[in-house]
């Protein structure tokens, strides 16, 4: 990263930037870190830093988006099968596993990007905005919405909070995608076949 780059990055932070540069920025994680720092410095200079939890939202959002394509790749059993003792699992799962791995659902069907942003202004308020789920039927930009289970306790560090938020998103995505995949796999099942409750 040379001086010239720093200049456009600095311009970008000030909002004085063209689309191409934004694209370049989006592909350069080093520049992104810088970008964040510049913003942070800017905020600090203007004395606009929040008292607590300076959430690194850009990283959160970016990694949430980045993780999307991975969701549509059937994961190989080797990487993910850790020896768990789940409440509802049994040893028989493994063979099915391989079969199911072949079925997949494209992100463009299933992408339910849940972008969580804690609204600073509302942290102090009694009424937290009700959680909203942002569904993206197509790849596209997501408008950040509020998502939080319960206001996390003050003791939680920014990093922990961020991780929790991401884990929530990941889990919600998994359920939504699986729901859509199940609709597809069972699209033929007629109601009369199985009517027990």
């Amino acid at each position, binding site marked *: 990263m040379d001086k010239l780059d720093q200049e456009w990055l600095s311009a970008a932070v000030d909002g004085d930037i063209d689309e191409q540069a934004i694209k370049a920025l989006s592909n350069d994680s080093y520049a992104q870190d810088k970008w964040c720092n510049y913003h942070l410095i800017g905020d600090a200079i203007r004395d606009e830093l929040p008292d607590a939890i300076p959430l690194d939202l850009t990283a959160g959002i970016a990694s949430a988006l980045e993780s999307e*394509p991975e*969701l*549509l*790749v059937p*994961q190989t*059993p080797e990487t993910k099968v850790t020896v*768990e003792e*789940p*409440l*509802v*699992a049994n040893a*028989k*799962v493994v063979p*099915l*596993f391989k*079969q*199911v791995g072949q*079925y*997949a*659902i*494209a*992100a*463009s*069907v299933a992408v*339910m990007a849940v972008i969580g942003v804690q609204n600073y202004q509302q942290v102090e308020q009694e009424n937290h905005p009700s*959680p*909203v*789920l*942002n*569904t*993206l*039927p*197509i790849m*596209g930009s997501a408008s950040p919405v509020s*998502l939080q*289970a319960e206001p996390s306790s003050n003791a939680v560090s920014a990093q922990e909070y961020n991780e929790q938020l991401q884990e*929530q998103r*990941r*889990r*919600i995505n*998994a*359920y*939504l*995608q*699986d*729901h859509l*995949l*199940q609709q*597809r*796999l*069972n*699209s*033929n*099942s007629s*109601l*009369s076949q*199985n*009517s*027990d*409750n």
Partner: protein
Amino acid sequence: MRNILIFLSLVALPALAQNEMTAKAWLENMSQALQHQGYKASMVQVQAGHIRPLVYLHDKVDNKEVAFLEYLNGPPQKAVRIDNTVTFIEHDQTPYSIFSNRIEGLWPAAFTSNLGILSHSYQFVLGGRARIAGRPGQLVRIISKDNNRFSYRVWLDMDNFLPLRMDTVSVDKNLLQQLMVVEIGQFDTTPEILQEAIKRQWPSARVISPQKQTYHWKFTWLPKGFKVRTRDHHRLYGSREPVEYIGLTDGLANISVYISESKTTELPSELTSQNGMAIVTDRIGDAEVVVVGQAPSKTLIEIAKSLRLEN
């Protein structure tokens, strides 16, 4: 004079017959049209401010239904149906086939199978007429009998009964989702793309026997008309987390119930999206219950609360 009367009756009767058709009869005609006619429809799916254009072709060749669906924007995504096999061809995926007599994602299952089951939970009401995709359309409302599910509005082509538009409407009558034809045409000779689809070798579909559940979970309450469609044990797509799965449907709305071991990261107890998709989480003992579906979140919560473990 008599001739004139006969002439009048000949001209007027079919129109009169259409005028007297019940909402149910309109839907039954639609069901037939969807399965037997050869047509190509360009459509848009609108939800939560996003528009997805798609094209759908359908025909009947040698008594077998053939259909092709393609989403036109973004990464390639297609589906081909030859009789009872549907193959999904999607970007970054190995194509795979499943046994199904419909391509999921367009019109609801009940439209081409059993309209009768809908009468438990919905009533059909004839509405007004409107012009859609340049065609005269008749509105049929599919209204939920209770507040446990959404309602639908379907406009049917008055000439050939093919659906031109379907709206999903919330309990408060807000529009949640829309599938709308922008151009539709019928054909007599099977288009090349469908002929090609018949000739092609597609991956063969396999019957998967569902993995038996370890525990038997029972619902003490389900909204009227909802029945268990599938019950199995699988790993969550995307996270590989093992879950007990119960799929519910009332013919139009589909709800998924997942039971798994409680996790350290709790999910929000209730989330809803602009297109009516909701996800709710509850706990029963050590188990976490997640209910997902396009239905009012209140309904999903009640379903989750009604789950009991049967000994």
